[in-house]
């Protein structure tokens, strides 16, 4: 039994496996599959200051080795999240380590969510700032692709809360390392990546986009090689821990991200295929470490061998 604990600076996790925001609801929905406290952390769907309807349907489409989504951050809003039985109160009871993904249409909205969470931060291990949601036109994309705006956003959220901050980066940038540096300089304790890649699919019979929102974010195995590259580049660029995600389906995929430089990883789209995937990934990482006689998952992080 290898040591699976990981250290993410201001906090640590019992193992490196989290769920990717938006693919695991609020935890509640998957609690009948496995105890939530087996996970490194539960990352909940993006929380906004007010309730959000989300986008019209169809919101998802299937593509080669992946899917597109434009859910549009439907959700209850932060107040309901904090107080309604099957959101935060349920998570607290479950014993899960909770990371709250937050999202807003403006710096103010982000700050407001952070303030409300700060006020009732008991049971919240970290906030993940989603600066990269490509689906909501009013701002998501501009924070995600403009390092100056992203820095300002992170600085404001930082000022609003003492909860450890993870900034989740968009893959739609030319130089992910620079971007990672910018948000770390602005006060982010950890960075996570990648979010989905803006994409499009068209029904050739109707000539309509397969997603009502026209474009949607690509996730799943199709994006894994892009994600591994970005995690590798980001981890080289910053000293803070990196959480990697994008197409992780099994322990081998997770190990690949860890070798590339991720301290922890998240399982997303694969949960739709196999709700037990996060647990199988935890067990599989352990087996890999045992087989390779590596005592702790920390030793594996960033060990990619690039000598020519």
């Amino acid at each position: 039994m290898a040591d699976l604990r990981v250290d993410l600076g201001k906090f640590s996790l019992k193992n490196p496996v989290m769920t990717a925001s938006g693919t695991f609801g609020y935890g509640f929905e998957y609690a009948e599959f496995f105890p939530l406290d087996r996970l490194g952390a539960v990352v909940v769907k993006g929380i906004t200051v007010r309730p959000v309807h989300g986008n019209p349907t169809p919101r998802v489409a299937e593509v080669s080795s992946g899917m597109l989504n434009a859910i549009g951050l439907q959700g209850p809003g932060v107040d309901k999240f904090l107080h309604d039985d099957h959101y935060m109160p349920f998570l607290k009871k479950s014993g899960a380590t909770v990371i709250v993904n937050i999202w807003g249409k403006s710096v103010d909205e982000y700050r407001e969510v952070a303030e409300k969470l700060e006020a009732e931060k008991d049971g919240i291990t970290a906030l993940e700032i989603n600066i990269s949601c490509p689906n909501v036109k009013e701002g998501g994309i501009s924070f995600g692709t403009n390092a100056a705006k992203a820095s300002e956003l992170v600085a404001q959220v930082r000022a609003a809360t003492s909860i450890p901050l993870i900034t989740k980066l968009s893959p739609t940038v030319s130089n992910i390392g620079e971007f990672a540096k910018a948000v770390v300089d602005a006060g982010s304790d950890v960075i996570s990546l990648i979010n989905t890649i803006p994409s499009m699919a068209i029904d050739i019979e109707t000539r309509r986009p397969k997603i009502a929102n026209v474009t949607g974010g690509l996730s799943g195995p199709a994006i894994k090689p892009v994600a591994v590259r970005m995690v590798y580049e980001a981890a080289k660029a910053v000293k803070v821990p990196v959480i990697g995600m994008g197409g992780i389906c099994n322990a081998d995929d997770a190990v690949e991200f860890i070798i590339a430089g991720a301290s922890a990883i998240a399982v997303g789209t694969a949960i739709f295929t196999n709700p037990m995937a996060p647990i199988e990934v935890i067990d599989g990482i352990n087996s890999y470490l045992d087989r390779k006689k590596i005592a702790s998952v920390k030793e594996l992080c960033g060990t990619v061998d690039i000598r020519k």
Partner: protein
Amino acid sequence: MSHTGEILSNEVLKDKYCRAVFRAPEICEKAEPGHFVHVMIPSMRDRILRRPFSICHAGGSQLTIVYKVVGRGTEELSRLKPGEKCDFMGPLGVPFSLPVEDEIPVIVAGGYGAAATYMISERSKNKGYLLLGARTEKDLILTDNYKNNGFEVRVATEDGAVGTKGLVTVLVKELLEENKGKNLKFYGCGPHGMLLALGELLITNEIDGELSMDQMMCCGIGACFACVVKVKDNNPDGWRYARTCKEGPVFKASDVYYGRT
């Protein structure tokens, strides 16, 4: 919640419709009319999502689904042979409620909807009607099975080749006319447009009913918000998006939001 089902048989029912029978005792035990299963079709590999299918019949350990071949997933499903296995999640969703007392079940269905509602005809103590709408004769399925369960079957086809020419709502109107004062309990499953038309018709006639609203699904258990339809709500907009996999697929006709925004 996740079970492995071995295929016992998998055959063409009619034209593009197939019937697959699986050994899946745990699911059968809990299955009610309107429940669905979320199926991993092996051999897809480059397609990662499960496919949802209503439970058509659940007897002992044998689970039956009836599916129409419409794309990659259902095509590959149709090629599976007895002995091969699928992974199932289910039974999922909010089921139909069976008729009580003197309620006469009226099932209004289109396409595979006749399979999704079939267990009502098996389990209802009162006999009733199946009003089946289809584009052509080829989309009329299970009519004999319904008849064997004591249901009267009325049919409408868009091309008029069989039954009444036109939409199934014509049959609904006729039936309402014939059965004034009777305690009809409506069930609907079929294309979205048909269900909205049915729901509005029922509401106009001050009758409620239960509609099974099928949408593209990912998780199947309420976590991803892919599968929503509009339902009434007392927020300022008057509606909210409800997840058909968790809060549905069966909704009261009176809960569905018919506004066009």
